[in-house]
């Protein structure tokens, strides 16, 4: 596959994508105007990766079990938090969440890790992690804030314009007040990991979140879209292990100046996307191919350009496009 395709060809590809009733995140010129942390992160990581997954909509045929596990975990916490925020007792909230996730995860199977099924992310460890989480944070000093519309600030879909024709969107897990002081407001994001999240080595995990595209975007969204003066984000980490779970949280702060700098970056990257789109050339950033266990397109990009499309068609699908404008 040649990556030197004309802008017109690319526009045609984008326009043929069916976004399932939701508006397309691409404008009439084929340039993305609605950005979430996933698509922005893709472009920041590697223009070619962004082009293949966002513009051409190639997704691996094999759905990531990490992603599926994470979705179930987030949903379980969301159900429990919402129930607690609306006055239900701990037991009822636990039952409600566990029942729903038992239903949602029926048929879920972990993928392979080093050739063997990943037994840190089984259906049983999923349910166990949720039960342990609920016990661990039963008397949490983070309290869900209630938005001006009277709803608890849990699993919040947002979209807002930062300049004409440029929008940020996404989903924020939670907005909380930490402790008794009403100005201690933070966004909160839940992460599952196999990394150690307690003890001295926990800093290796938590330092990943500052600077961090997703955490800064969420801090921005909390301030602009939800009019909540958050100080930054709380990262609630859950370690997934075969025989246990450990929980830890860390704070990552963002000042107004951080947010301003981030927004300038968004405008810059949007302009870059426009230029790549116009030229039809989306360069590879080879220095990021090995990040986080390796890019999903590494095997494709390692092939000679003329045979790449054949391999893409074998191992990838264009079934369901990622749409930052689709609410959860």
């Amino acid at each position: 596959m040649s990556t030197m395709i004309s802008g017109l060809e690319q526009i045609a590809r984008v326009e043929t994508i069916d976004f399932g009733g939701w508006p397309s995140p691409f404008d009439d010129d084929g340039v993305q105007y609605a950005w979430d942390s996933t698509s922005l992160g893709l472009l920041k990581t590697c223009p070619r990766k962004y082009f293949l997954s966002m513009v051409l909509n190639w997704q691996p045929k094999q759905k990531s079990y990490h992603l599926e596990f994470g979705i179930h975990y987030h949903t379980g916490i969301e159900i429990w938090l919402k129930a607690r925020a609306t006055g239900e007792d701990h037991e009822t909230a636990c039952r409600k969440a566990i029942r729903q996730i038992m239903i949602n995860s029926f048929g879920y199977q972990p993928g392979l890790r080093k050739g063997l099924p990943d037994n840190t992310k089984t259906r049983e460890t999923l349910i166990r992690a949720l039960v342990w989480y609920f016990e661990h944070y039963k008397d949490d000093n983070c309290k869900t804030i209630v938005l001006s519309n009277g709803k608890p600030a849990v699993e919040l879909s947002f979209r807002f314009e930062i300049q004409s024709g440029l929008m940020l969107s996404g989903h924020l897990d939670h907005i909380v007040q930490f402790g008794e002081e009403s100005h201690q407001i933070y966004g909160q994001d839940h992460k599952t990991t196999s990394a150690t999240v307690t003890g001295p080595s926990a800093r290796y995990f938590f330092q990943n979140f500052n600077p961090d595209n997703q955490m800064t975007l969420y801090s921005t969204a909390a301030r602009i879209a939800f009019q909540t003066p958050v100080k930054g984000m709380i990262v609630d980490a859950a370690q997934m292990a075969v025989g246990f779970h450990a929980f830890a949280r860390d704070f990552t702060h963002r000042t107004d100046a951080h947010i301003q700098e981030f927004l300038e970056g968004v405008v810059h990257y949007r302009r870059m996307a426009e230029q790549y789109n116009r030229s039809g050339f989306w360069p590879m950033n080879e220095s990021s191919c090995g990040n986080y266990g390796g890019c999903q397109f590494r095997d494709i990009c390692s092939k000679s350009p003329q045979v790449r499309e054949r391999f893409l068609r074998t191992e990838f699908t264009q079934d369901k496009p990622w749409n930052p404008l689709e609410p959860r």
Partner: protein
Amino acid sequence: LSDTPEIANAIEDMVVSPALIQELFDKDPLDLTTEEIDVIIAKFRSDRMNYLQPEAKTPKKVSSSKAPAQLDMGLDLSLDDLGL
């Protein structure tokens, strides 16, 4: 499953056999009763307590097949030395 004595005992004693848990995980989740959901929750709460309170766990059994190490006390006494 919910009517079985095993479920009633499991809830009362918070002791859930791995086989019962497996059975509950294999069951169509739409058919799980509240009691069965409670068993699952109780099982994982109990696992957590065991993990957090390792001293409450059953102590490791000392192997009887191996003789305890002999201590060298640096003594070289005979019965005579003891006046016996």
